[in-house]
């Protein structure tokens, strides 16, 4: 197998493909130029574009190193495939962590307000409101220096525990009933009748 592989891109038994040294010199010069570019660009504030530009230049450098210095371009494709798969799994790692960081308040609008990201957002809104001379309606959480001290922060309200507020559908099941049973089943049809006297506000919520 490896014999066939080798005869495809080399002459003779042991002739690994030798990249001309001039190609290495060219890549070296390109890497130096790109380093100067990334330092020069960083002296200019591009706002939100700072990070993408820096990562683009870094990825160009990394590609040169991987393709030419590490010879992935000339190599058995298997090695490149192994590396690419590693990068795919790394990107999954990034994807799901950042999805979590940026999306909590959308998933849970009530308690998501108390995530760090949501506090940050509110702090930024309050700062903008202060600049505009508007009175800030919401007290921020105190995670950064330009916010009020930490002792002003109020912990989030505890989740509702009273049966009339939170536990509407089958929240106080009878002790004998099977959890999660369907209303049509034998056990489920008996459960509401037994549960009704247990809660004070039950008659209102029982029909649901």
């Amino acid at each position, binding site marked *: 197998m490896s014999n066939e592989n080798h005869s495809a891109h080399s002459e003779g038994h042991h002739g690994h493909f030798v990249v001309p040294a001039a190609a290495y010199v060219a890549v070296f010069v390109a890497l130096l130029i790109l380093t100067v570019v990334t330092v020069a660009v*960083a002296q200019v504030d591009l706002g939100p574009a700072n990070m993408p530009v820096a990562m683009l230049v870094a990825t160009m450098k990394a590609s040169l190193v991987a393709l030419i210095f590490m010879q992935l371009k000339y190599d058995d494709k298997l090695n490149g495939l192994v590396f690419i798969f590693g990068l795919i799994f790394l990107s999954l790692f990034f994807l799901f962590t950042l999805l979590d960081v940026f999306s909590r308040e959308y998933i849970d609008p009530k308690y998501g307000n108390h995530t760090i990201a949501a506090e940050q957002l509110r702090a930024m809104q309050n700062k903008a409101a202060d600049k505009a001379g508007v009175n800030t309606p919401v007290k921020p959480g105190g995670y950064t220096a330009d916010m009020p001290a930490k002792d002003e922060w109020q912990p989030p309200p505890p989740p509702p525990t009273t049966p009339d507020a939170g536990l509407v559908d089958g929240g106080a099941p009878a002790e004998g009933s099977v959890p999660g049973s369907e209303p049509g089943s034998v056990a489920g049809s008996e459960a509401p009748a037994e549960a009704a006297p247990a809660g004070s506000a039950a008659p209102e919520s029982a029909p649901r």
Partner: protein
Amino acid sequence: MNTGIVRRQHAHHFATADQEFSASKLGMWLFLVTEVLLFGGLFVGYAYGKSVYPEMWHEASKHLDWKLGALNTLFLITSSFTMVMAVNAAQRNKAGEMNGKMVGYLIATIALAGCFLVVKYFEYSHKFHDGMLPGIYYTYSGVQNANAHYFFGLYFLMTGLHGFHVVVGMILLGWVLVRATKGHFYSEYYTPVEVGGLYWHLVDLIWIYLFPLLYLVG
């Protein structure tokens, strides 16, 4: 230094020397992938910290000296170049005539790695002196923002793990260097030079991302 070469018979469990070579390389690439995932955890930690504390991140990263970071980038890129030139010399080494060149390039690579560590030493000692340390050891008062210990914690973890890889790379290439002086590597057998080089390029690759992330964009 040996001016000739010492020929090598491939290990008995491989059919051919080529098979041995490509198996070694594949093994190295698999290892490099685990390295990428090891550093990946820290890069994800970076992404998380920067997303959650953007202003602190920006302020804290201003306390790193980008000139020293750029100097170290220069050292590592140059060392990657001398490393491929060492591999190139090994590939052209038919009967020991390239031994001297190969050894020279390997010495240059190791010396540049040493320069990197010297710069790192000055950076670290400055931060130790000022108390820009991780977690509970953080005593620096120059950053207004609370939570700056998070940034410096990641800074030390990322550059520390990377610096550890530089040290390991120097040891590895030192072993390659000793064998190169004995004439062990020639056009038909240079696997340690090749896979040692792969490892060294990965160290460079990781620094290519660390430098802008820590020193420049912050």
